[in-house]
């Protein structure tokens, strides 16, 4: 181990000073009125990560995604021209939802109610007895959402008319880095989902700070804590518009692993090396993409987490671990199983305190929350979100809309 590097560790508190030090209004984490403003100001306007290109391998492939915060059901479709498009899963005749399957392959979409038939490009191809309508087919196409991808990740924006280009939203640094992650080359993934009584930011923030690790993960995270860095803090932070990154401290205590863990994790590292996934500049970097997605570039555990708001006090999470190519050997399959179950296991340790945090917030007894310097990513998320909420409220006041 590089002793000089270990001795040199100093928490990068100066990198978050620009974010300020004010207490954070607690209402932002439980108040239905504030959530309603967030829903309109952020989620109905921002690019949202929603899937991966490996789910749409060929023309006609589609996935359906439910965005409860907007009461929206979204179809992402790969067209015959290989272009990804997104549509509301709503027949333009009388609003019936077209597709019930979560994923599949189709030549088009037919409404079960009156057999309106739409092409993969969303255009109305045919409809029984259409001559009796007072419409032109070209005015009956499925309603579109904006879709684009970066680093294999698919994003949608529910406000296509006002959405900036995805790459502009992400910025040059993240576009470059995301393209280099293992996820960008992924061909398959394992996934688990959960619903939790927690505001989306409270849930998401748990994964943005290392302050809690030694208290909540004293055993499962033991390798992360060293005498030089007892909290397992990251070595640096990065801020990129509304997004943020952190670079994890590299000097983990490998002796904390048991022989069984060393055997399985060792196999995982060997396969990552063979696939050219390590070393890679993204291997220790964590990418938090505004508003509700993060990706870790680890070569042996490259997982993502999307937190969808369901209400002011409830959220739904999707955790995925992506893999490059199918497992070629039993050891590679075992390493993938173990990587997946460890993420789920460690995550389970967080659930109790996140729920407890929401219950405390719901009591309304606290006016403010507090973030220390090393919880700067949480503060950044609040600052960015709150600025959008305030801007939205000013707009709404100007137009007379309720915010």
């Amino acid at each position, binding site marked *: 181990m590089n002793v000089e590097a270990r001795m040199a560790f100093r928490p990068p508190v100066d990198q978050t000073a620009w974010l300020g030090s004010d207490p954070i209004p607690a209402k932002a984490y439980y108040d239905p009125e504030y959530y309603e403003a967030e829903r309109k100001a952020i989620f109905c306007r921002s690019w949202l990560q929603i899937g991966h290109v490996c789910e749409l391998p060929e023309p006609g492939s589609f996935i359906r995604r439910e965005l409860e915060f907007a009461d929206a059901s979204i179809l992402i479709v790969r067209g015959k021209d290989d272009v990804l498009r997104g549509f509301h899963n709503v027949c333009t005749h009388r609003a019936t939802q077209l597709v019930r399957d979560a994923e599949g392959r189709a030549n088009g979409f037919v409404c079960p109610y009156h057999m309106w038939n739409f092409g993969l490009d969303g255009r109305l191809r045919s409809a029984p007895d259409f001559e009796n309508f007072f419409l032109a087919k070209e005015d009956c196409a499925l309603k579109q959402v904006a879709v684009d991808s970066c680093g294999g990740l698919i994003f949608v924006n529910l406000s296509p008319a006002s959405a900036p280009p995805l790459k502009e939203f992400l910025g040059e640094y993240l576009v470059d880095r995301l393209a280099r992650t293992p996820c960008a080359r992924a061909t398959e993934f394992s996934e688990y989902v*959960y619903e939790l009584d927690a505001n989306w930011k409270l849930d998401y923030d748990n994964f943005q700070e290392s302050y809690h690790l030694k208290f909540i993960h004293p*055993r499962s995270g033991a390798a992360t804590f060293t005498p030089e860095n007892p909290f397992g803090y990251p070595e640096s932070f990065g801020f990129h518009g509304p997004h943020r990154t952190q670079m994890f401290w590299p000097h983990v205590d490998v002796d904390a692993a048991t022989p069984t*863990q060393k*055997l399985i994790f060792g196999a995982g590292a060997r396969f990552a090396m063979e696939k050219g996934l390590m070393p890679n500049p993204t291997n220790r970097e964590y990418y938090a993409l505004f508003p509700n997605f993060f990706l870790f570039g680890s070569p042996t555990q490259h997982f993502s987490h999307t937190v969808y708001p369901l209400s002011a006090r409830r959220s739904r999470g999707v955790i995925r671990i992506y893999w490059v190519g199918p497992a070629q050997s*039993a050891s590679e399959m075992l390493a993938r*199983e173990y990587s*997946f*179950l460890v993420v789920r296991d460690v995550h389970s340790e967080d659930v109790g305190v996140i729920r407890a945090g929401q219950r405390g917030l719901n009591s309304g007894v606290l006016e403010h929350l507090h973030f220390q310097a090393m919880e700067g990513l949480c503060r950044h998320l609040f600052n960015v979100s709150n600025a959008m909420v305030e801007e939205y409220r000013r707009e709404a006041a100007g137009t007379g809309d309720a915010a």
Partner: protein
Amino acid sequence: MNGEVCLPAGFAALEGFVAGWASPTTAARAARRSASTPAEREAFFAAAAPLLEAAMAHLDSRPLAELDAADKRLLALMMALGHVQMAVEVHREMEPQHAALREAMVITRSVSDLV
């Protein structure tokens, strides 16, 4: 399995665990772990952990796609061992609490399903 040989030669010590632990899917392996007693987990871990290296050496002697039914049972056992290892070596007396919290985390897809 009524005395039937279900595993490759050399792994007879694990025959008694096949019926209980050789589940073909990640979700089933996770559920089996959560439903098990401490004694069941410890007995399986004590028998299987010392054979992990030998089992993987045997299974890696041919491509994954060429494993026969007995090999797949052994692989399923080793993947179940991964789950049980977390319970026995990491969570220990906290495992029942973790099992309850894991219930909310529904496995919807796995690349390690053997079906």
